[in-house]
């Protein structure tokens, strides 16, 4: 019995009475039927939470390439399917209108961003890395030798003008490449929020 609101009001109290008198729907014997699970037809893909260091397992329900639901991974031995409020909210990061989705540049002195291509962004940064590396290269530290009292030149190979912050928020492989990238170009000034 599918009664529209308008129709219902026209029927008024009489039909309610009719139903109440046993002629219609009796909720006590009603069964929940036909509850279609929105997850039907989706793929379950496990992942790891991105907040504290619990490393809780998440299950992503992905349907036609789109994330439709996310919950705790019941097979994960740490969280056994549970998630804290932050993890439970992570569906909303996937399609957040606030995500940055294109590279952008803020020119010196400018008060706004402009969108640029990946090609342009990467080239600018690569060029700048070379430029600063050349300009601030320190081949040697000069120290006074404690024993001889003479000045010693110690080879140090440092790009003094480049710093790299990051990160406890990226994967191991990324964190490692940051470390490797820094030392190969000659900067030991690689730090991150683990300190703080």
């Amino acid at each position, binding site marked *: *019995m*599918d*009664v529209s*609101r*308008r129709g*219902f*009001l*026209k029927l008024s*109290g*009489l039909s*309610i*009475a*009719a*139903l*109440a*008198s*046993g*002629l*219609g*729907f009796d*909720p*006590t014997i*009603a*069964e*929940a*039927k036909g*509850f*279609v*699970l*929105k997850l039907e037809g989706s793929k379950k893909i496990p992942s790891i939470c991105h907040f504290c260091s619990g490393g809780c397992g998440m299950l992503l329900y992905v349907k036609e390439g789109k994330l439709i*639901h*996310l*919950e*705790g991974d019941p097979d994960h031995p740490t*969280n056994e*399917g*549970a*998630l*804290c*409020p932050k*993890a*439970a*909210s992570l*569906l*909303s990061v996937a399609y957040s209108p606030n995500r940055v989705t294109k590279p952008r540049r803020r020119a010196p002195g400018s008060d706004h961003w402009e969108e640029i291509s990946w090609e342009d962004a990467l080239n600018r940064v690569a060029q700048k890395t070379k430029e600063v590396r050349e300009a601030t290269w320190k081949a040697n530290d000069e120290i006074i030798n404690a024993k001889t009292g003479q000045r010693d030149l110690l080879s140090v190979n440092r790009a003094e003008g480049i710093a790299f912050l990051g990160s406890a928020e990226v994967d191991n492989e990324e964190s490692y490449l940051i470390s490797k990238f820094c030392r190969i170009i000659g900067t030991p000034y690689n730090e991150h929020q683990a300190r703080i």
Partner: protein
Amino acid sequence: MTRKMILVDTSKCTGCKACTVACKEWNELPAEKTQLVTSYQTQKDFSPKTWTYVTFIEKYKDQTMNFLMRKAQCFHCGDPACLKACSSKAIRQTESGFVVIDHKKCIGCGYCTENCPFGVPKVDQTLQKSFKCTGCIDRVENNLKPACVQTCQTGALMFGDYSDLLGQAKNRLSEVQKTHPQAQLYGEKEMGGTTYVYLLMDRPEVYGLPVNPTIPLSLTLWKDVVRPVGGIAVGGAAAAVVIGVFANIVKGSYRSKDD
């Protein structure tokens, strides 16, 4: 499906509010604008978009702090006032014990809101529909736990067959009472035995819960006095409904905009 129960063991709850996020995520409910209400509580009441929230009470006595958190949502009463009150037969009770609103039938009259002793259902005035916790009936009927239970990390929310879980709740209560003698179960007897049963650390009034929740008299008249007479008292039944409707008009919840 057998009768289910959700135990809300407040002795384990840390007020992390994951249940409220999981509820909104699963049921696709948007966030609402809030501010701090008291303690760490930011959600004041139920709304058509907020079906569950956590209350925070700080009770400091004899240099001891009792920091009480309670997840609030529809109790899914054994004897639901909303169901009795519903003018459009939109509310029903599943075999598993959940009280659900059929939005195809709901007309947003607000009787459920008015008559619920816990103030749970809320009418969305734009949609003209009443909303509340569904017990994630779509999940439950498909053998999943409700979203709030699924996400609870501390073990404060448990889902299971009514008889099993009630036994567990009683055992847990006797443990908790060793340190909190006022601890008690709430919902075992109230409203015909609710589907969400609480293990409270203190008396219900400390949490702002009614001590003896009851079904309003007008509803009792209609359903329990008139209805048993059945078909032979159609006139009487109609009269009772009128009384009920009248009672709600007086309370100001009966609205009709487009008729």
